[in-house]
């Protein structure tokens, strides 16, 4: 604080890390980006985004800053991942193994949740 002018406060122009508005600002930001790239927000679950393409659908589930991306057929998710990496600072952790304490095992036969 400026000692000579103690009555003045700062007005933030951006949502800083740790503020209570920050989570919403982040969710708006990634939501907006996904919507502009053709995704639709699900009405049943706001952290679920679906994009329908000619080849099938791509589904994204967001938990704070963790994204699960999946698809039902040949829909291209590699371009999407590349675009996301360009836009946000992201790391591709590969195939889903653990999520929020749930172990996921994937095989051609099906998917196990443990």
């Amino acid at each position, binding site marked *: 604080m400026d000692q000579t002018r103690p009555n003045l406060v700062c007005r933030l122009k951006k949502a800083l890390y740790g503020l209570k508005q920050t989570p919403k600002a982040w969710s708006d930001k990634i939501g907006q980006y996904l919507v502009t790239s053709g995704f*639709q927000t*699900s*009405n*049943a*679950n706001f952290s*679920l985004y*679906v994009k*329908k393409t000619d080849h099938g*659908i791509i*589904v994204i589930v967001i938990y704070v800053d963790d994204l699960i991306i999946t698809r039902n057929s040949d829909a291209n998710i590699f371009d999407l991942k590349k675009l996301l990496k360009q836009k946000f600072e992201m790391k591709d952790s590969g195939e889903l193994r653990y999520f*929020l*304490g*749930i*172990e996921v*095992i994937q095989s*051609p*036969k*099906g*998917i*196990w*949740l*443990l």
Partner: protein
Amino acid sequence: MTGCKPISILLEQNVKLSADEGDLVEDTTMHRRIMGSLIYMTITRLDSSYAVGVVSQFMQTPRKPHLDAVRHILRYIKHTLQCGIFYEAKSQLQVHRYTDADWANNVSDRRSTSGFMFSFGSGVVSWNSKKQPTVALSSTKAKYKGATIATCEIVWLQKLLLDLGQSMDAPFVIYCDNINNILLANNLVYHARTKHIDVHYHFNR
């Protein structure tokens, strides 16, 4: 608990836990920590959701019998560590719904517990076991209320499936073990004898 003996039963039969019997547990923090973990575990382990629901009703003042029941659950978990939900790749995508309820099983407030389970294809996708908010005067009512909760879930599930591009042309298959309920759901002719059910929702006020 690491050296404990695994057990294949979740809750001992016919043991009714009550809020004020037995000695108080000394380390309540530990008890609550275990309970927190158990509740989180029900996200993937639907088999334990009823048992966890029962013991979590005594978080306020945990007593010795409650702690014993929690230990019992932990031993069961040890027995079934390898179990999980399996979603088979080549399964028919049909939603099945199962509901059931007990009647006035809680000894202290005589409320019923109902549960439902939805399976989609080979795996379970949504389930719930919850003590009903009101007293039911007959098992038909208890089960009917449980079915209502499950129907609310269906509405949401249908929306979700629609968003995922999976329109449900085939109707949901509903399983329920009470013949009265099936008649009640199919036929409104019983209305005069059952319209007091909505009045009874306020019975315990």
